[in-house]
């Protein structure tokens, strides 16, 4: 009997402790009007002083919840739609946009400063449920040293990659599990069409394309152009990565080289635009709106490139010299409407998997 009392007391204490956790949270939400909570993916990054400036001028404190990759962040936001984790979701890109919109994730808000954004990026221009913030290109990167040593011109287009001169040189990622892998597949589908892309991949396959599971392996292990890949003895001089990877190679080098060791094949790019949106049922709508406005300010836009390795969407925002020098954005990237991606994505990935992996 006495034993049971002890257990009951312990259980009671446990519940008190738990509800105590609950109340502290309650206090937080009571002060929510002073805090803006931003849900994002792991790549979210911003300079400290830039956030401080926003906090000072707006009077809001910013909390950021980073959560895995972009897909995960969006899926979580959909699951928690009725009680969202935050006020703003940053980081839904065009490959995921339809999933987010179809699930009614956002409430409309027309951001101040939207007029300065290139209409090409405004994929929800009628309803303003999302605001474009940045863009980036998924492109084939090449190892400059390899191509100059072999006196070979680096490939420039999708079609080039299937040519015999580039046999066994390309490594890409699994489209089912990696976002650059998916981007490359979508790029090929945009270029060759719903009926043509499978034929293209058969050619790539015959030309010795190698598929690995994730970007890390492709870039750090197989690619001969990255500093780590070099150490690892990577022997593929072509890799599917980002247009901003060459500047990153320079900026994150232990000893800064005078020129980027890698280049970008400009005709192989697929454009990704990233959006932010005010979550439906957000607790702090006012703060959320202020934050979205802030994302389009020149200060944030110019801070972004070196933190997240993307390009600003606002016209006239200055891009750092490393970007213009080593990794300019593609001139004519492949693009695809979010609705088309949503309609085809799963079935394309399935077909691609059985075509290339099986």
């Amino acid at each position, binding site marked *: 009997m006495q034993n049971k009392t002890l257990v009951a007391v312990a259980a009671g204490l446990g519940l008190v402790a738990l509800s105590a956790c609950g109340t502290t949270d309650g206090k937080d939400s009571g002060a929510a009007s002073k805090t803006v909570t931003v849900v994002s993916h792991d790549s979210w990054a911003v300079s400290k002083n830039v956030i401080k400036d926003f906090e000072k001028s707006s009077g809001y404190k910013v909390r950021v919840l980073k959560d895995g990759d972009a897909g995960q962040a969006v899926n979580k936001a959909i699951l928690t739609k009725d009680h969202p984790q935050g006020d703003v979701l940053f980081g839904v890109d065009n490959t995921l946009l339809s999933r987010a919109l179809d699930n009614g994730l956002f409430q409309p808000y027309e951001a101040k400063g939207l007029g300065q954004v290139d209409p090409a990026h405004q994929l929800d221009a009628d309803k303003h449920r999302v605001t474009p913030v940045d863009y980036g290109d998924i492109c084939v990167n090449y190892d400059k040293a390899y191509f100059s040593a072999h006196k070979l011109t680096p490939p420039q287009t999708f079609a080039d990659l299937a040519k015999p001169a580039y046999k066994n040189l390309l490594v890409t990622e699994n489209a089912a599990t990696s976002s650059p892998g998916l981007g490359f597949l979508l790029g090929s589908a945009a270029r060759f069409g719903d009926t043509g892309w499978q034929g293209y991949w058969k050619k790539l396959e015959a030309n010795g394309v190698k*598929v690995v599971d994730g970007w890390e392996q492709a870039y750090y292990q197989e690619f001969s152009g990255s500093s780590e890949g070099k150490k690892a003895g990577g022997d593929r001089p072509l890799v599917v990565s980002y247009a901003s990877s060459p500047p*990153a190679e320079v900026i994150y080098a232990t000893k800064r080289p005078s020129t980027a060791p890698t280049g970008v094949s400009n005709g192989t790019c697929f454009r990704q635009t990233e959006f932010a949106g005010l979550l439906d049922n957000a607790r702090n709508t006012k703060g959320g709106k202020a934050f979205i406005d802030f994302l389009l300010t020149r200060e944030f836009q110019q801070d972004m490139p070196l933190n997240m390795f993307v390009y600003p969407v606002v016209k006239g925002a200055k891009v750092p010299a490393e970007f213009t020098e080593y990794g300019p954005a593609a001139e004519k990237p492949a693009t695809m409407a979010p609705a088309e991606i949503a309609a085809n994505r799963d079935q394309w990935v399935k077909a691609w998997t059985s075509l290339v992996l099986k």
Partner: protein
Amino acid sequence: MALPAAFFAVFFAWPVAAIVTRGLRTDGAWRFGRIADVVTQPGIRHVLWFTTWQALASTALTLLLALPAAYVFARLDFPGKRILRAVVTVPFVLPTVVVGSAFLALVGRGGLLDELWGVRLDTTVWAILAAHVFFNYAVVVRTVGGLWAQLDPRQEQAARMLGASAARAWRKITLPALVPAVAAAALMVFLFTFTSFGVVQILGGPTFSTLEVEIYRETSEVFDLATAAVLTLVQFAAVGAILAVHAWTVRRRETALRLVDASGTARRPRGAGQWTLLAGVLLTVALLLVLPLAVLVRRSLDAPGLGYYRALTETDGGTFLMAPLHAVWTSLEYAVAATAIAVLIGGLAAAALARRDAGRLVRGFDALLMLPLGVSAVTVGFGFLIALDKPPLDLRESWILVPLAQALVGAPFVVRTMLPVLRAVDGRLREAAAVLGASPWRVWREVDLPLVRRALLVAAGFAFAVSLGEFGATVFIARPDNPTLPVAVARLLSRPGDLNYGQAMALSTILMVVCAAALLVLERLRTDRTGEF
């Protein structure tokens, strides 16, 4: 009993049920028809087949390599034994991101094998099997070796004196006593490899997929919650079956044997046979366990003047709002909280289970507490999000969520460590104290506590190390912008540039050293009769 049960119900059963329900119920109607649809898909059947056979192969290989080591640890005494025992346990608590990178550096392109013989094993099933042995070696060594050390060697000696050959004495005396422990260890290894996620994800390349990887993909990438829910149920059934068998073997072991103090059963190696065995085990440990870790350390030292380590103390302005090194403190704080919860929950559960009048229901709870080890982290993580999102339990933004999830993984280890010790406490001592007028609290303090204190510390240490390395659940759960060590490593690995890669290696090395230190402290605390881990 009530507290562990409530904890388990609120933080495990409910979230998992919530996410499974979400997948299988649309517009208020259950769709159980989905189960048959999913299970009969050829792709899924292939996944099930691969999951099972690689787990079987991994288990067999682990037993083959680790059983000699169990013998060596149990029966031989040699300098550095404690350190060696800590070393073989380090892999078990390391996060898979770290191990994956270490193995890639070893067996992948440009790895050591590649340089020496041009052999590359990444994206082959061999790399997966090797990594599984790496992870689970300690499970066999500690479970089987621990019991072996407590078997009275005089029984075998007596048989020899009565004329039995060495082989016969071993087969008739020692083997039967060991079988339940071997079976329990094998089942644990099977459980861990059956639900393997990170290893297969990183080393398997795109062609291999286990059930757990498939659940992750369906939930996280494809967002097909229905399929994920069905697969979760399938995995649940499989894990439940494994655990039921495990509980049964564990119970058998705890009853039949008369055990002696482990400190008296080991002696210096004698004869060529024992020396060869010792050398063989040391070589296996060196090649299979130490080498991958050494590769990691070497890569972290690639920059001149410890450059990667120094970079960890700087904020680069964006990726990390605080210097990456700060993750060490975050991890330690979380691990302390997780350990406290795990010890409270696991300890109470063990106390309830150890009571002699514990009924079938209570003993069934033993297996239930192990379930979190076998359920996909993404399922638990997403379940947390949709189940714990309303007052009074709106924990989604609370830091406590991470330690809670880690405690779910840590508690089973506490139970497994405490249970045998608690069962060994003579109930008459308690009764005598009670008769003499001691209150239950005083009985516990004066009788139980002194007897189980060391086991409690060992359990706490193990829970601590496990929480430090826990990756799966942590990464899925909302948290303030304060990454733990494994999460910080993963984040660094996902960016280009050799500074990022080097920092990831340096952080991994730090994590490894912290885990090793925790385990070395444990070795000092080891009791003569610790549990399975």
